[in-house]
């Protein structure tokens, strides 16, 4: 009996152990499997009229994710604004007509609604856990192939990019390869939680060639390459922005955010020293929308905003948050410096048109 127990014990001891790579493989596979349950395929159709009698129907395929169990789906809205018909293919393959609730142009987030119950929503990660270096696993529709996945890391946060002539702030930068069809795909971390949603890809090689003008000499456009070539860096909308925008759209039926009509940045060290402003205090106005509330209040470029509605302004993102989180117009008192002299003014923050 003792011999048998000894043998069994030895068997347990000498059982081959999984290598670290095998463990990682298993973990990644489980994460992808989990994320696939919330991943959807979105097909948008458009009528393209070349001439009065020549009409063709074009379609585009992108990715999306389930936001609520009762049928709210989110995706990137840059391709959906003029869509004639939107169809969502659920993870089980069922296809449903979707209603476009709204597209937020500032973030390009679109909220769709399908008639469905019991869907598996993506779980948004705690914004504090979204850091440089964490895994960024994309589950999308690469080249139209359903629920494809790719893996990389979050390589930067708080990036600002221009896509289709529009400016997108506070984006997540990733090393994860993304390609056509991945737009709107869920980016998950090592816990399988959604940290971001794919927005766009950047092809550094094409950008380099473009800067040398080589492509144009050969009559090529860089987009000939970037549309199908590999994107060396990808960008995604962070989960915190997704939650803010989508919750607002679901609540109001459209995006509602405060608007001051200005752009600000951190104060340069030289300016700070010259005006004797303490570290971590104030932001510099870089531009003012001529039709916006800030212009109406008399703010100008190079003004230094010190306080906003009684609170000390420490950085641009903090001030932006204070403004955009408003759901109704509000008059606030602002203290600012112009040419070193302090001023105070009232500004009516409006709801962005």
């Amino acid at each position, binding site marked *: 009996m003792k011999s048998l127990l000894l043998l069994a014990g030895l068997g347990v001891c000498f059982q081959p152990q999984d290598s670290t790579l095998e463990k990682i493989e298993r973990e990644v596979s489980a994460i992808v499997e989990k994320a696939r349950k919330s991943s959807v395929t979105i097909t948008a159709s458009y009528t393209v009229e070349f001439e009065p009698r020549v009409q063709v129907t074009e379609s585009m395929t992108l990715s999306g994710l389930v936001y609520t169990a009762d049928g709210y789906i989110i995706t990137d809205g840059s391709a959906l604004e003029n869509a004639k018909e939107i169809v969502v293919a659920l993870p089980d393959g069922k296809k449903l007509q979707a209603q476009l609730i709204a597209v937020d142009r500032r973030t390009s987030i679109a909220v769709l609604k399908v008639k469905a119950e019991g869907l598996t929503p993506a779980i948004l990660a705690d914004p504090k856990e979204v850091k440089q270096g964490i895994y960024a696993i994309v589950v999308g529709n690469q080249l139209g192939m359903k629920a494809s996945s790719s893996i990389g890391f979050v390589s930067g946060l708080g990036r600002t990019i221009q896509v289709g002539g529009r400016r997108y702030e506070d984006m997540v930068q990733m090393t994860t390869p993304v390609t056509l069809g*991945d737009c709107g795909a869920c980016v998950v971390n090592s816990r399988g939680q959604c940290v971001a949603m794919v927005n766009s890809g950047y092809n550094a090689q094409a950008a380099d060639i473009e800067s040398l003008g080589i492509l144009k000499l050969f009559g090529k456009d860089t987009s000939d390459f970037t549309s199908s070539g590999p*994107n060396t860096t990808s960008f995604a909308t962070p989960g915190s922005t997704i939650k803010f925008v989508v919750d607002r759209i679901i609540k109001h039926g459209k995006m509602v955010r405060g608007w001051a009509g200005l752009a600000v940045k951190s104060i340069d060290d030289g300016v700070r020293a010259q005006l004797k402003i303490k570290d971590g205090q104030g932001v510099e106005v870089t531009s003012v929308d001529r039709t916006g509330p800030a212009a109406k209040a008399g703010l100008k470029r190079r003004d230094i905003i010190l306080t906003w509605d009684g609170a000390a302004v420490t950085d641009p993102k903090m001030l932006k948050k204070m403004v955009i989180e408003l759901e109704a117009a509000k008059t606030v008192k602002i203290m600012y410096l112009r040419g070193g002299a302090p001023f105070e003014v009232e500004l009516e923050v409006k709801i962005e048109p």
Partner: protein
Amino acid sequence: MNCEEIRDLLALHVGGETHENERIAIEAHLPGCMACRCAFDEYRELRAQMSEMKDGTAPNGAIESIWPRVRAEILPGEKKTGRIVAMEWLVRAAAVVVIGIALGYSAMQVTKRAPGAAPGTVANDPSLMPGPNAREAGSGGGRWGNGAGMINQVPLGGGRRGPKAPGNPYLPRVEKILDGDESEF
């Protein structure tokens, strides 16, 4: 500009032949208009395919005589300016492309034509005729130019290198990386 005016210019825009004000108008219009973007993508793809077909050099004198007429026919109401003269190198390049397209396209169709078809009937090939079903039949229905008299209809399905992904999968491209410290609100 409305969609119709934009689409009249798209063929020129993909070749970088538009005037500065036209280019600005098109680039401002495209992000907000999916239909025009689809049309733009068609032209761009067509151009990419055609640039692969170009071969040889244009006959002497052909460049100067053809391109101004091409542009005049595409945009009949446009006044001629000194810009065309100033952009002579561009005109030469464009004319080479146009002639190359014609030669390459004809060669491609000759090799594709069914046995027994009479030579010189490319323009009458039913698969190249415009119509809503052309695309469904897999031959495409893209239009190059607007009555330029050289090539009216070209198939988008033929001559493509490599497989095409199903359903036009979508991912926009980043145009610029901007200063991340600045916030607009």
